[in-house]
């Protein structure tokens, strides 16, 4: 029983990281209509930006480094979209071509990270962590902060999408880009803002993943990408709220399963859920009328 309760706490931490990453990926997919396979590498790059700010230059507190590292990743994502992805998306109607470009981009970013930071496992400079009792759970302060960040971010995304003109324009574009343009929505601007938000969330997710795992490697984002896809698809592709719910399901299921089966099968559990979803509800468990 004790192990089961502990695994729920781990599940909530994993779900938090997953939710930040899934919502970032879903936002970008909903607007541009193509999958960014370099998203995992965006996460890793953002994590290494935070690492440098935390360990090498400025020696910032990890939470301050997380903010600046993520913003840096957001700005870089806008640049990558402007210089590389957007021209391809304009040239080719089918999203498939841009998807291939993102595959290539993924390899390039991964190797850039290897060349700048090497293949060594690294870790952030954080205060010594003590485990605290929170109700029936045992959590470190860092894990609690990661969960708080995820909750606050999800609320902010909800407020953005539901109550601001910017969010409504994003949803309008996600729903019907052509009609959004005809209604006078500046779709280029919305796309740029979306890439900034998506890149920033990738950076955040990569850094909090490194914090919660206690280490980071150039490939950590790429490995996590498959779990993110599972969460996004289980929740309902293109749905922000689906991505949040999918993250919770996958995060909890993978960690709780580890208290019953060998922990090395955690990823397999995520894929089993993904396959079952695709078999019985391909539109996603939380797909409903309306994307966001």
């Amino acid at each position, binding site marked *: 029983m004790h192990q089961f309760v502990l695994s729920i706490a781990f599940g909530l931490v994993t779900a938090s990281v997953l939710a930040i990453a899934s919502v970032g990926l879903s936002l970008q997919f909903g607007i541009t209509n193509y999958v960014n396979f370099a998203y995992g590498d965006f996460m890793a790059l953002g994590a290494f930006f935070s690492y440098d700010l935390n360990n090498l230059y400025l020696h910032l507190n990890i939470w301050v480094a997380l903010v600046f590292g993520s913003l840096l990743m957001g700005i870089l994502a806008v640049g990558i979209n402007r210089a590389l992805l957007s021209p391809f998306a304009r040239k080719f109607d089918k999203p498939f071509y841009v998807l291939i470009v993102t595959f290539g981009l993924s390899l390039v970013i991964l190797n850039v990270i290897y060349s700048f930071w090497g293949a060594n496992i690294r870790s952030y400079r954080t205060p010594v962590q003590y485990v605290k009792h929170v109700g029936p759970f045992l959590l470190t302060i860092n894990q609690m902060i990661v969960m708080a960040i995820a909750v606050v971010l999800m609320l902010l995304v909800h407020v953005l999408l539901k109550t601001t003109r910017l969010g409504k324009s994003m949803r309008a574009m996600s*729903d019907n880009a052509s009609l959004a343009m005809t209604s*006078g929505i500046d779709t280029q601007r919305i796309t740029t803002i979306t890439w900034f938000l998506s890149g920033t969330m990738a950076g955040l997710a990569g850094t909090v993943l490194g914090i919660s795992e206690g280490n980071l490697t150039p490939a950590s984002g790429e490995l996590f990408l498959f779990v993110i896809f599972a969460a996004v698809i289980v929740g309902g592709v293109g749905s922000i709220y689906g991505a949040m719910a999918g993250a919770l399901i996958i995060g909890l299921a993978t960690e709780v399963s580890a208290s019953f089966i060998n922990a090395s099968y955690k990823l397999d559990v995520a894929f089993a859920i993904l396959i079952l979803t695709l078999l019985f509800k391909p539109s996603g468990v939380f797909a409903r009328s309306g994307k966001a």
Partner: protein
Amino acid sequence: MTYKDLSTTPAGSEGPILRCEGLTKAFGGVNAVNGATFDVPRNKITALIGPNGAGKTTVVNILSGAMKSDSGTVHLGSTDVTNMDRAKIARLGLMRTFQLSRELGGLSVLENLLVAPKVQAGESIFNIFFRPRLVKREERQNIERATEILRTYGLYDLRDNWARELSGGQKKLLEISRGVMASPSVFLLDEPMAGVNPALIERIGGYILDMKAQGVTVLMIEHNLNVVERICDNVIVLAEGKTLATGKLSELRQNKEVVTAYLGEVINASTGH
């Protein structure tokens, strides 16, 4: 020209509000529009009529920026909007509807209207975080205006429904009300009466007259000549992609070319001969 500039660019105050000259558009070997030239007078309701395949919808697509012309020019007031990005044209004050109504189905009925107004503070991340009062005030004003429009168009009770759940007639009304929300100077309506019941035709006719009373110029594609006769000040007849004639419908009924190309066909259809 930035989007902000566009929102404040006046469509001028003299002469025709919309002028197109020598528009052409070919699809493969077919000339859908073949030198269409006409002016749309300011603050009037103008009908664009013609037989099927005359190029009416293609012309409206070009005017609204949804399609690029092969040649020719389009001026909105004094601004050359030829082949301009459609969002920029919309922000200059030219809105449109479609033959088959289009709605932002994943947004509520109210939200469909709230995305329509031109440049707003709430579009900027900076303003959302650092000028929240301004954003809130603007949003409140927009909600008030949208609510008023929805009441006028009989959609108020459906304001929180997903737009995709509406019936065909309701979608038609939503599309028109979304355009009205943007405070356009020119409103292009592509067959607003198509597929709607007679009672709704009456209502939509009334709404179009209201728009005119509020200073909006309307250019509408319409096949229903009773409606054209009743609400339109001016008529442009297109045939084979060219402007065949312009004038009042009563004058055009005397024009042999027009009768041969279109009106005879419509009158025969309506009388069953």
